[in-house]
């Protein structure tokens, strides 16, 4: 891909082309980044390049929880301090990080890598559901927390998993839905308010 009429040296234009493949980076920003990298101190540029290679070479998908990790099984799955009888099912690794930031959850995770979305052609076979069922059938799991997003696709996925798990007779829970901290009641929709009312807590 040539950027306008700019006569760039071959390695530079190759870098521009590669950077342009990143999400949210157009040809102009790609060129600006490329020239910034060119002027960067050698050590910094090398450490960036090494970081990119490491992220591909040194990460694996944990065969148990399907999260992206540096070892298989990952640190969470092998940790002795965590409760191995609770599994929290999330859509993607970023959701796992958000839950970990709370520091309040001490169980294990399972990453689905997507949600059911018939309109985008994503069915049950595209998610890591088989792995979840294997884990539950072989392990000593007592509770499964469904922590998919509170939108229609997330709800559909949660209901689908609930249906899969119901014959196994374990506790299946769903994250509470209600009002966000710092929100404004006036802007809440009826569904959220209904759930908030149903899930009200004594003070």
């Amino acid at each position, binding site marked *: 891909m040539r950027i306008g009429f700019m006569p760039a040296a071959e390695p530079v234009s190759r870098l521009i082309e590669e950077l342009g493949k990143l999400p949210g980076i157009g040809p102009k920003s790609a060129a600006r980044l490329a020239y910034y990298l060119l002027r960067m101190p050698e050590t910094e540029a090398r450490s960036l390049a090494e970081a990119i290679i490491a992220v591909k070479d040194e990460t694996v998908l944990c065969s148990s929880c399907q999260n992206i990790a540096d070892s298989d099984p990952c640190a969470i799955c092998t940790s002795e301090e965590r409760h191995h009888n609770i599994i929290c099912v999330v859509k993607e690794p970023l959701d796992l990080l958000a839950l970990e930031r709370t520091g309040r959850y001490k169980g294990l995770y399972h990453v689905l890598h997507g949600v059911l979305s*018939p*309109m985008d052609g994503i069915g049950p076979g595209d998610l890591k559901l088989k792995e979840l069922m294997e884990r539950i059938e072989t392990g000593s799991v007592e509770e499964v927390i469904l922590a998919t997003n509170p939108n*229609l696709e997330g709800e*559909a996925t949660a*209901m689908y998993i609930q249906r899969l798990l119901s014959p196994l007779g374990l506790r299946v829970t769903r994250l509470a839905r209600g009002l966000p901290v710092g929100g*404004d009641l006036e802007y809440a929709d009826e*569904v959220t308010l209904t759930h908030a009312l149903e899930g009200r807590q004594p003070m």
Partner: protein
Amino acid sequence: MARPRVYKTEAIVLKRINLGEADSIITLYTPNHGKIRAVAKGVRRLKSKLGGHLDLLTRSALLLAQGRNLDIITQSQSIESFLPLKSDLNRISCAFYVAELLDQFTAEEVENYPIYRLLNADLLWLCTARNSALVLRHFELQLLSHLGYQPELYHCLGCKSPLTPQRNLFSAISGGSFCPDCAGKEPVVRPISVDALKVMRFLLSNDHTSARRLRMRSDLSH
């Protein structure tokens, strides 16, 4: 239809595609502007005041501002969230199908008020329907009809004579039925029973209030 710079409309959300950090491109079906796509800024944030009012298959009152490319949703207030529909996996999948069908079948910005009414009525019906397949067949046939593809179910497409109560044939390519004498020249035909023909005629000529009273044999619902 030309739209003013800021305009109000009712709409049913058909589809959401993520855009950038926290925005979404939302495909809406509106009464007076047909299908439109608009940007909802920040809807994926937990505290978004738009978020819950713009979930898939929710009917909302919206305020939109014309953008350079896509319009921007500035306010939204849900009117009907079809809650019973969303708490049952089977009904959700039917509703997804309805939304996908409508999205694929319509072009943007082509006004079609009857389709909007059909969508709203059939989604409400789906909330309480005992036989969701019947709702889907009703929606499919009515949608075809409103878009100008209504299949011919009363006369043979070949000889134009009224169909007699016997095992006739149906061609999806030609969009209608044939009597056994004329079907020979058609490339792809499938036999259609008298009952199936009657159900299709009934669903085409009735809205949801009468159609919901129909009891159909299960082999006819597919």
